[in-house]
């Protein structure tokens, strides 16, 4: 006898502007269908921008996301620079790319740590969190802030790379090269972690294309796309960036959580290489075209038209479209498409056929912010009974599954997937 439960997971505050509730239909523990409803804290940021001038919107766009704040700023600024035909000095381009890569390292380290926490691998979680501190220290040295850096402006950046910062950056690269490999090996070669992540939350290559998946989620499904290669912006024009795809490392792409983990972890090494190249090739010269904001504002007031900014943020491509009207101070309209907006469309496919205890891991695997996931409501349609399952209980379920697997470790055949 089967009973179907419908379980809303969320609202999940994904850390961007998309908090998402997932309604999971269950047969026993197995998810048979899923529907997704975002919108629990849509803040209307795009509407708010209509009351602000472009310079004020830089700081508004920085507050879309707490982790990839700089990506949104650069994306917004590039959209305005596109429509107003503004130039950025080469040194400014290099510093922008530098901060974008630091942000990628920060974001991927945070994510891989939290993914370990979700499956109950606490020692790896602490290790990940500890390593993340180093890149945050460097960002703080650059800008004075750990999260919203306030570094970028129209036509360049606001802070320069000092010799002191360069020393700290080179030290950071050395530190990660040394410390990150043990972390990667501890997690990716652990049979229990492999069993929890392999063949869980699968998104095939075709589905990734049709459902417009982006970034590491698309690459984990085997799609060789990366905007840093296909349309190099800022300093990426001077470096060859190859998309990191699992088939180059595992022989084939499964499109599962382990592949998403692998792509992000390997991209950290790639980012370290890019940071080093940026430091080696950092050109001399000005880092901003026009530092006087009154002059910038006056030229933006004359600008008229629509601009498009698109960059490869840590979670995938981030798209901003901005429209300005000549003679008007404020932004006419602005559209932000954060990567999760695109990736969340494929959630229902990833959920199908997995267990309830895998749901937190799958939600997490596209890199939203699971720590804000508040509660779940379990509804038994037959008995008209409903109960609220708290976030901690949900995470407990996910962690419990790993511990049960751990006790079966001797029976686990490596490479055999998550068969219990």
């Amino acid at each position, binding site marked *: 006898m089967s009973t179907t439960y419908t379980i809303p997971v969320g609202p999940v505050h994904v850390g961007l502007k998309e908090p998402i509730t997932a309604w999971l239909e269950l047969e026993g523990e197995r998810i048979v269908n899923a529907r997704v409803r975002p*919108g629990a804290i849509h803040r209307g940021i795009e509407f708010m921008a209509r009351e602000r001038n472009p310079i004020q919107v830089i700081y508004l766009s920085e507050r879309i996301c707490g982790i990839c704040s700089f990506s949104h700023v650069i994306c917004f600024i590039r959209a305005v620079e*596109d429509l107003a035909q503004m130039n950025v000095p080469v040194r400014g381009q290099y510093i922008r790319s530098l901060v974008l890569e630091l942000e990628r390292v920060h974001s991927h380290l945070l994510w891989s740590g939290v993914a370990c926490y979700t499956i109950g691998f606490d020692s790896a979680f602490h290790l990940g969190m500890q390593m993340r501190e180093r890149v945050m220290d460097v960002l703080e040295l650059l800008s004075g802030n750990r999260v919203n850096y306030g570094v970028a402006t129209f036509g360049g950046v606001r802070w320069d790379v000092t010799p002191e910062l360069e020393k700290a950056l080179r030290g950071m690269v050395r530190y990660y090269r040394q410390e990150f490999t043990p972390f990667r090996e501890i997690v990716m070669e652990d049979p229990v972690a492999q069993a929890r992540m392999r063949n869980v939350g699968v998104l095939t290559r075709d589905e990734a294309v049709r459902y417009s998946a982006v970034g590491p989620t698309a690459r984990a499904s085997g799609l060789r796309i990366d905007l840093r290669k296909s349309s190099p912006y800022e300093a990426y024009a001077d470096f060859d960036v190859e998309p990191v795809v699992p088939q180059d490392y595992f022989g084939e792409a499964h499109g599962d959580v382990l592949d998403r983990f692998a792509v992000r972890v390997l991209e950290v090494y790639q980012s370290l290489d890019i940071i080093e190249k940026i430091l080696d090739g950092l050109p001399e010269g000005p880092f901003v075209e026009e530092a006087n904001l009154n002059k910038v504002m006056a030229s933006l007031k004359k600008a008229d038209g629509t601009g498009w900014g698109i960059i490869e943020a840590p979670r995938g491509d981030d798209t901003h479209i901005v429209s300005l009207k000549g003679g008007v101070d404020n932004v006419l309209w602005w559209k932000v498409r954060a990567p999760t907006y695109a990736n969340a469309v494929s959630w229902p496919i990833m959920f199908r056929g997995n267990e309830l205890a895998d749901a937190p891991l799958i939600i997490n695997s596209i890199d939203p912010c699971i720590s804000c996931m508040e509660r779940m409501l379990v509804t038994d349609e037959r008995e008209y009974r409903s109960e609220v399952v708290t976030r901690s209980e949900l995470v407990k379920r996910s962690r419990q599954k790993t511990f049960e697997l751990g006790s079966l470790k001797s029976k686990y055949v490596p490479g055999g997937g998550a068969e219990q």
Partner: protein
Amino acid sequence: MTSKFKKMAVDCETLVAALKAKFADDIVRLDVREHRGGSLNEVQSRDLWIEISRTAFRPFLDFLFEYDFVDFHVISGDDVGIADAVQTQTQSQAQDQNPDGQNQEKPQEDSVLLHYHFSLFQRSRCGRMGVTLSVRVPKGDLSVPSIFDLLPGSEYSEREMHEMLGVEFVGLPNSALVFLPEDWNEEIKPWRRDGVGPALEALRELS
């Protein structure tokens, strides 16, 4: 399910020529923007900005799908009202002299302008071409064909444009609210600049 994508990659000039040859009467505006960067300041990518008449919108997209990997990003849009007619004046005058033209643009009409953002040719270095396809939808008949059947990934964007601007997407299976609260009055479309938009007294200043 197999994807519908073909592997035909061409350069910008060839694509523009092909589009102009096929949709000469329907293209209202076509611009190419170049993006330069790096120490040599060379062209790193190109964006194509095309405005197309509403009747040719779906045939145009089907034609675009003949090319390599049409990647959908988002739909943006604005309530342009009737003030935005200046840009297309020349085009409309040209069409006035040609009364047989089936796809006559009426820029004077109160309308919503939608922009569909796609990428093409992402396989090679510097190969990507951004395509922004704009279509003007008059408020009298605020509907466009949905592209959900081509790319289901467009679902959220179409639902968002439906709830924010009131555009009907014909063929979209689920056009329920996506970002607005469950108890939102669906007669109010937040991004509209006319009577359908939120009233001033409904706005709350937070700072």
